[in-house]
């Protein structure tokens, strides 16, 4: 529920009936959460922009078929997760074939071993936000995504496990270790 008094699911239902204003409310409500999830995972602004558009296009397209059997955010971040995985796979394939003629976008796993390589890390500043970025660069991809799904998507461990197709215990461990590392890296700002 929000200041408008309408839940995400109600807004989706309204949009499914052809109310464009409902979609805009929904978009503005979740825009930054989805954006941070995408950008902090792929660590490339252009790729994150492209994924952002694909995710919301998919939401708009499938609104008529949306049934609120689960939270809207679970559905939304499931779409975001799948689009991101597809993008990473495509980037890998393009990199290996070198068919696009330009340097491939950095992908999650590629950057883990070299934390300072991505554009996200290049924006590091000597402040709290910069420290957060550096801390994220030090996290393994799986832990980073699990953490972002929980904190940005407000999803439960079960929901994250379902989205990432991992077991409950594995997901729980990823979350714990992600927080432990972040706490260590950010302790001077705590």
């Amino acid at each position, binding site marked *: 529920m929000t200041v408008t008094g309408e839940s995400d699911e109600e807004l989706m239902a309204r*949009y*499914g*009936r*052809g*109310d*464009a204003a409902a*979609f*805009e409310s929904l*978009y503005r409500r979740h*825009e*930054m959460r989805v*954006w*941070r999830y995408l*950008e902090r995972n792929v660590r490339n*602004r252009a790729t*994150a*922009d492209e994924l*952002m*558009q*694909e995710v*919301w*296009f*998919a939401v*708009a*397209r499938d*609104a*008529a*078929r949306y049934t609120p059997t689960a939270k809207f955010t679970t559905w939304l971040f499931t779409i975001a997760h799948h689009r991101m995985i*597809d993008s990473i*796979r*495509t980037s890998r*394939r*393009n990199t290996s074939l070198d*068919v*696009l003629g330009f340097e491939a976008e950095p992908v999650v796993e590629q950057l883990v071993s070299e934390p300072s390589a991505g554009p996200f890390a290049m*924006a590091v500043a000597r*402040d*709290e*936000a910069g*420290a*957060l*970025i550096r801390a994220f660069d030090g996290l393994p991809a799986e832990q980073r995504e699990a953490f972002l799904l929980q*904190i940005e998507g407000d999803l439960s461990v079960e929901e994250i496990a379902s989205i990432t197709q991992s077991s409950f215990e594995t997901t729980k*461990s990823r979350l*714990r*270790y992600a*927080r*432990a590392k*972040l*706490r*260590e890296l*950010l302790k001077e*700002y*705590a």
Partner: protein
Amino acid sequence: MSELPPSPEESDEVDALYRRASARDASRPSESVRRAVLEHAAQLAVNRAAGKDSARRGTRTRAKRPSWWRPAALGTLAAAAIAGFLVIPQYLAPLAPINPTSSTVPATTPPAPTPGPASSSAEAVRPQAVTPETRSAARKEAPAADDATEEVVVSAAKRMPAQGRSRQAAQNATREPSVAGAPSAPTAQSVPSTASTPNTPNTPSTSSASSAPSAQDSAQPAARNARSVASGAAALSYSPPQAASVAATAGLKATAAQLRQAAELGNVPALQSLLGKQAAIDARDDSGRTALMLATLHGRTEAVKVLLSAGADPNAADANGTTPLQAALEGDQPAIADALRRAGAR
């Protein structure tokens, strides 16, 4: 990973730190993305409000995609029906007008005016059928049919075994006079023999060029016969030139429909075969979809590549303005999207 997991209190502390840091992060999605998303959503909302959503291509899922068969099948059937409507009458009616002027059946034709013996064989006579007069007669009979249409029709006649007369005439039309009974330059005297034996090599009424004295007497009916035969060659068995043009157009449409169907099914051999026949690669169906768009919608990666390599327009949008690249992205077809981008799709 050897350290202990944080306690819930420490987790809250980390989460609070994350949120505080995120609030200071100025990173935002670009304005163009926001605008594109909201415009797209608004357009879909308008479509839904108008009850058109089900007809919109972008909203179709894979489960629904088989329903695209219906317009494709109807289009193919319609094209086949039109072609059949134009061709079938030519099997029935056109034979009647040619028989009275033709000497292919000796019992129904007047005796040949040539007093000389019918000593020349049909093989010797037939090459003379291709005198320039014959072609010019055909053009006079079919002034509305331009050269391109004639080419299509002649090639169509070659492909249709049942149209023996037309095929024979078409073959004659492309053959040079060689061992004709009259080695001299083709003249009006050669026309009667041409016209009288368009398709009957064994007809006894054929005259050789040596029968020149009597040929002038039969010049006029023979010229009519020549025009009739040539007209038949040019218009698929003696149909009017307008019908020939329509038949050619219907044939091209049918080929384009077959191309789209092959693309939809991902039938690459059929696709290549049709492309080899110069099928219109960017022809659209009733919804404005090209073969490339249909192949994209049905996830036919190989078909997409074949079409692109054959020069299909990668930006040919359908009636709703959706481009193949948009369809590939919405349909979750990254391989096709890559191929389209490489071909210059936007």
